[in-house]
């Protein structure tokens, strides 16, 4: 079970959170300007890397705020936590 550092509440156990998939996938400003293929890529396609992954989590049983997490998908280690809108930090070694 992961231990996740909520940027507002501190360290809490995984069941308090809710997963939101890949981070930094911005909703297109004008969806009507996109081709079918580009729109489908936005809706359906996500990265699935082995290693460092930036993903969204929501502290749904706590402050209910969304934030970003850098997590290693191999070791499941949470490497960094940062707020929505912030640039991802360098993944620590």
């Amino acid at each position, binding site marked *: 079970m*992961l231990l996740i550092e909520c940027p507002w509440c501190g360290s809490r156990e995984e069941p308090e959170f*809710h997963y939101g998939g890949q981070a930094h996938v911005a909703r297109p400003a004008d969806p009507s300007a996109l081709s079918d293929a580009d*729109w489908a890529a*936005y*809706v*359906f396609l996500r990265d699935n890397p082995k290693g460092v992954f930036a993903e969204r989590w929501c502290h749904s049983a706590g402050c209910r705020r*969304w934030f970003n997490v850098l997590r290693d998908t191999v070791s*499941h*280690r949470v490497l960094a936590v940062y707020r*929505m809108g912030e640039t991802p930090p360098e993944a620590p070694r």
Partner: protein
Amino acid sequence: MTGRTQDFRLPKGGVIDRSRSIRFRFNGQWMGGYSGDTLASALLANGVHLVGRSMKYHRPRGIMAAGAEDPGALVQRGLHDEPARTDPDWRATQTALVDGLEVATIGAWPSLERDMGAAMGLASRVMGAGFYYKIMHGSRWMWEHVQEPLIRRAAGFGDCPDEPDPDVYDHRHVHCEVLVVGAGPAGLAAAVAAARSGARVILAEQDERFGGNLLGRRRAIDGQDGVDWAAAMEARLRASPDVRLLPRTTVVGYYDTNYLVALERVTDHLGLGPAAPGRPRQRLWHIRAKRVVLATGAHERPLVFGDNDRPGIMLAGAAQTYLRRWAVLPGRDVVLFTNNDRAYEAALDLHAAGATVRAIVDSREAPGAAMPAAARAAGIRVMTGCVVGGTSGTRRVTGASIMKRSTHGRAVPYALDALPCDLLLVSGGLSPVVHLFSQSGGKLRYDPDRVAFVPDRSAQALGNAGACNGTFDLAGCLSEGAAAGAEAVRLAGFDPGAARTSFAVDEPDASAVAPLWWARPAEGHEHAWGQPFVDFQNDTTAHDIRQAVREGFESVEHVKRYTLTGFGTDQGKTANINAIGILAEALGRPIPEVGTTTFRPPYTPVTFAAMAGRDRGEYLDPARLTAIHDRHVALGAMFEDVGQWKRPWYYPRPGETMHQAVARECRAAREAVGVLDASTLGKIDIQGPDAAEFLNRVYTNAWSKLEIGRVRYGVMCREDGMVFDDGTTARIDDTRYLMTTTTGNAAAVLDHLEDYLQTEWPDLRVRLTSVTEQWATVSIAGPKAGILMGRLASGQDLSPAAFPFMTWRPAIVAGLHARVFRISFTGELQYEINVPWHQGGALWDAVMCAGVGLGITPYGTETMHVLRAEKGFIIVGQETDGTQTPLDLGMDWIVSKKKPDFIGQRSLTRPDTARADRKQLVGLLPKNKRLVFPEGSQIVETGASRRPPPVPMLGFVTSAYWSPALDSGFALALVAGGRGRIGDTVAVALPSGEQAAVICDPVMLDREGARRDGHAA
């Protein structure tokens, strides 16, 4: 009472309390033991080796080990005395002996001594690797009528209780700086080094007594006897602040971020039943540790040779432990078969205790120096370069056939000597218990010098100490443990002080070992000397592993599954390393290339009751009750679960069937007035200057122009264009709206809206609050609802003429401040009256009272479903399954063509969502009006357009009911291109045969909508 005497108990010694005698029953026979015994040690003291039968071939099996790794001595506890508390699969080696304990062999029929299943053993040549997979490829009839019943009867371990478990099971969640797993010498040294530093330390030990191997060996530490040293360390820890000692507690799982789960057997050792009232039987610990020190020790490996599974064949170290810890002589006529020096000590100890050691059979030509010399000095015959090729005996081993190894390492196929014995000790070397390390994500490395897999790279904040780290000598265990404990404290941010890392121990060098994976007979004689078992619990032999390789399996993971090696409770404790060695030889590859299988939790079995803890029965899930719930109970309502809510389903009158009750409720709502508790609908208070813009983006229709006091229906999609939820939203004032959601989806809708507000549109000034449990809602519907509303809100004109459809207004209803909404999910004149939650009951009473004489009838969700379906109104989750767009549901009218963007809009013009042959919502009327199709029924073409089998599915029934208003069964359905097929006849495939039905418009009643304003047609 007849019984056995403890003929094999030595007159003195052992860590047992001889002043406390214990009597227990094994398969109905009374026997004696002492406090401090395990079931296994007590059985051996009484000369009992035959304890169980193996799962597949039902071969007689005995006690092989003295701890968690024993694969065969599983018993059923309390089957007759405590049937509700009976437990299958108690490991005899880990069951504390308690007065009156009743245990029985599992899996033997009719008795342990004469088991009919043993005939299976004769068929072993055709039941080899992959037997269970292969048998499924035969005829289906044979499988269903012969093979499966036979396998089900033969397989399985023990009987489950039929009654609910009467005991209490607990969970505890704790944090600590240092968790030490295992209280052998390394674990004790680690805990002592970590204690008194200010750090919170937990020491968990599966045994009831601390000391590990010190309890089973003659050792001195700093001149103190090992058993006394362990007791002294325990006393020191007990007196240390911030140290929690957990005996009888097995750490069974190691998960992410140093989260570990441990099972504590709180009162199991006191006996089943009322021995410990008020205390839980077991407790599951959830431990989050800053640092973990693993000191889990090592398991001795058995050796693989012909008929190596007979009762009386025992791990050398286990025999030593039975001798020293429990003062039990497991046999009087002993042969030791080993590939290492360490096991010699067992033969020497048994010799010193008075047993006759016939020989030490050593597979190596050149063993180490000190141990063989000591054996010879004691007059024991040492046979080097030899193996035990086969054994004799049925329910107990009676002899061992000794063979010379040829230069190729295989056994010369004739016996050099045949030695009588009643105890054959085996030792294939030590395997570090790397289970928890491996579960934590750590990587293993094969160490050829130690002939073992040892921890390599850690993935979590942990240290390994002692035998689990490949450090098998006592001095090394102690110093490594102390260092690991001090290091853990330091890394957790505390000062361990000056840690002591050097201990005076007198121990001979016994480290020499050479691999022997299988004492394999020479070519052509492989089957002549009996079955070479590798996994004793699953009856996997060395032949099975080689057969798997011949059949094309190479990966260790595949071979494991195909041969079942390491399945069941064994989980790689005794079987895996030998299996890997045999596989490596068969593949002609080195062991590091073959690798290990994954060690999965739990380390030892955990009962479901312990996992459930107190979350059983009514505590499994919270039940959400409305403010009016007690009224429904008083009315005799039947309830259904909608999410966590208990909603009235229907209100049967005495003697009424569900069908009759629902028909009566439907008629009341259509002809008089019905009343529904609608409090469970999700309600979200939306506030902020950008609220209208927000609604524009999340609903498919337009919201900018909704006036204060008006209500609008909306459909929400996800970005893929599929319907996610629906409901009405009312404008309360300039910047405030009240949204309703479906009952089951309320939390998901709030999550969805918050996600967009926080992450995509943080610039929108909007705030959301769930107010579901702030407003109780009573809905009245029917042609007489207007009269009823007039009685409830006297002096206010709430008639349909003065209070238009799809508006709301504040009103005083029955003296309560209310919000009244004129919306309709039934097609009838309907008012939804909202009052503060705590006034819900009062409102309901007032409505029921005012309805006297109007035929007021409470109705439940079933009637609500019928009424809405007659009007063609969808229910999200009933007509939708996440693959329907609003257009599929015929809701083109609610999808704005003018808005620049809303969630899901772009997806509605994707080629797939724009297909003409998508399944579309239609009504369906059965030709036989009496029929109500089962929901989910498949719809196919009928007549000339029917294609030959396989007949393609046109669609399926989403809802179907009996309609009193139509006097017919009817259904809603999703049918390919359905809207263009109104009037077509199709077939609904039922198990009893096909039934014809006509496709129609989903709105079947009052298409003009006159009824919603009280004008009954």
